[in-house]
């Protein structure tokens, strides 16, 4: 009895300790956040998170891990799922696909998790989906906005797709910017695939693509591009250049007088994190289209509550923002929760069957529901414009927007 008691205390201590140190990623790469209660007959349900806690996009990965901790804590506080507590296993994918595959195998083989959520870049998703879904026979939820076309069975996407980010946004840009578009882009899969869709929407709405050009991912000087933008009198720069290039690029555009001449910047991954890359005046009027902006907390009580809860638990620099998959992570976990409740069990087949049409009434930016048979998620979309270093919502979708995938 006393030994058991000791164990329980130590376990609880370890749980809290892991919780407290989880954000201080040092490269060891594994964290377990155990529930405070573990008296259920069947043992806990195991949730795996595989995300980039270290490396260049650690700011996004840490925010996602924080969201997972918050959601799991909240579910456990409400009595868990099916009377069982949830246990959270976090592995570092380290912004490095080969490290990631090894760490994801730990989740599957050693920890035997019931579901994996994570991966931020498309290359990461492609690297870890096979170990999870095919060889690992486990459910996988991918939370980030991405280029679409991911139709692997048992792989569910909860971030925005090109249709969701372009269908209402591009007509808005044509009306509030002009018809002549430039598509400067980083040379990898997301910009290439997104641009195919964006070009179609631009042309269908009477716009024209003046040039579409790809740059090495580490290019930081864009004088030639800026010159083409200015000399072709481009109205809208629909940017998919990513950091580190995007900061110098926007600065050079600003210095060349693009904004002064009435040009409009547009970038569909721009959220509260990326606002800090440039000085506010260099990106004044930049338009973005995402499923959530922090400014929504002023009008939506649920968003206000969610944002406040996150900031209370995680006051640091890792923001709850749509561009880093934090909103997709929240949505993914809550949809999965709804699916497990409906299925009444946690095996992959039953949960996948329920997740196929799962719905949540409240989430970041509004409700969300999976499109049956498509493994993608309908959600509300918002167009926001940067003004003085903050966003203002200037347009919103009428209802839930269809992902148009698979």
């Amino acid at each position, binding site marked *: 009895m006393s030994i058991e008691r000791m164990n329980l205390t130590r376990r609880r201590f370890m749980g809290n300790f892991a919780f407290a140190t989880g954000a201080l990623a040092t490269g060891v790469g594994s964290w377990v956040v155990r529930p405070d209660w573990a008296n259920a007959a069947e043992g806990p349900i195991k949730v795996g998170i595989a995300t980039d806690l270290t*490396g*260049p*996009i*650690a*700011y996004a990965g840490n925010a996602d891990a924080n969201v997972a901790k918050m959601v799991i804590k909240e579910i456990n506080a409400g009595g868990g799922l099916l009377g069982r507590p949830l246990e959270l296993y976090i592995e570092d994918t380290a912004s490095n696909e080969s490290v990631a595959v090894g760490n994801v195998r730990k989740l599957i083989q050693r920890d035997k998790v019931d579901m994996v959520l994570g991966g931020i870049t498309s290359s990461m998703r492609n690297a870890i989906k096979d170990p999870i879904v095919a060889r690992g026979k486990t459910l996988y939820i991918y939370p980030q906005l991405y280029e679409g076309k991911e139709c692997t069975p048992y792989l569910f996407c909860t971030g925005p797709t090109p249709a969701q980010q372009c269908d209402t946004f591009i007509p808005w840009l044509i009306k509030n910017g002009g018809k002549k578009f430039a598509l400067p882009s980083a*040379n990898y899969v997301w910009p290439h695939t997104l641009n195919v869709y964006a070009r179609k929407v631009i042309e269908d709405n009477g716009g024209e693509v003046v040039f579409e*050009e*790809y*740059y*090495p991912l*580490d*290019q*930081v*000087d864009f*004088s*030639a*591009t*800026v*010159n083409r933008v200015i*000399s072709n009198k481009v109205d809208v720069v629909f940017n998919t250049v990513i*950091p*580190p290039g995007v*900061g*110098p690029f926007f*600065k*050079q555009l600003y*210095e*060349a*007088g693009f904004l*002064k001449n009435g040009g409009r910047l547009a970038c569909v991954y721009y959220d509260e*994190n*990326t606002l*800090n*890359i*440039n*000085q506010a005046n260099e990106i004044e009027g930049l338009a973005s289209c995402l499923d959530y902006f922090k400014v929504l907390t002023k009008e939506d009580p649920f968003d206000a509550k969610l944002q406040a809860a996150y900031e209370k638990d995680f006051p*640091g*620099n*890792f923001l709850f923002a749509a561009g880093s998959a934090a909103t997709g992570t929240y949505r993914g976990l809550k949809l999965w929760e709804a699916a497990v409740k409906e299925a009444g069990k946690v095996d992959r087949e039953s949960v996948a069957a329920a997740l196929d049409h799962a719905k949540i009434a409240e989430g970041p930016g509004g409700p969300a529901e999976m499109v049956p048979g498509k493994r993608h998620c309908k959600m509300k979309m918002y167009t926001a414009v940067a003004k003085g270093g903050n966003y203002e919502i200037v347009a919103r979708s009428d209802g839930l927007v269809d992902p148009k995938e698979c």
Partner: protein
Amino acid sequence: MSQTGGIEHHASTFAAVFEIVSFGAIIVLVVLGLGIIASMMGIFNFAQGEFVLLGAYVTYLAYAHGAPVWAGMIAAPFVVGALGFVLEALIIRRFYAAPIVAMLGTYALGLIIRESVRGLIGGFYLTVPEPIGGSIDLGSVHISAWRFTIIVITLLVMGACYLLLARTSFGLRVRATLENPALARASGISTPLIYGATFAFGAALAGLAGALIVPVFSLFADLGIRFLIQGFVAVMVGGVGSFIGPVAGAGLIGTLSAALPWVMSPVVADVLVFVLAIAFIKFRPQGSLLGKGSNHHVD
């Protein structure tokens, strides 16, 4: 009509030349310290990019704590130079006998600095405003005031370095120590001190470069590594052993990598710069654009 077209054409040519020269100046600034350490000390410092990063970080720290940005820019070379002096005494000194080990050792050092800074800034991209912001308007052409300032400072720093190494007694001691350390010691020159001072000087130049470029590129952990490869190629092309070789190499590589995207796909241009550099080194293995160079680097 054709008149206006002609003016616009001239204006855009001027803008192009300015942009290309300004990027060339940035590369020269970054490579200056690298070239001095490589030429004067015979080791290739793979941590040089991280000294650039540290200069940028010091500038950011000053700005984040409410000090004016220019104060941070002045402090950066001193802070990074002092760190360079300490690192030379503690670590770099042990590598002089083995240049290959020195590359690995300095690379490891750079990795430690880079990942520490990444931890300190949380992996974010942080903006630092330029002390002289905005653009200079010349008719329809707008050129960046800060890039113009960088060109001016680069020219001044180049001139000062040349005078220091070629015309002062300190420069004479540095060159003597390199040419023949034993004889230099016999003549009463404290060679360990000279090595330390030279390394610190090279590090300080990197710190200055970082401080000046951080408003252009923003602060992020991989800021330095971006320029390391270009710097390495510049030194190879320019040739080790003289002051002017690496500087000329940097000017060429910088200008080329900014100019090629004007006439071809940027992805092709990126590769072509290196292809041209390799071809050049193949035909001029001594490096040196200027015909002289490594002949007086005798060990």
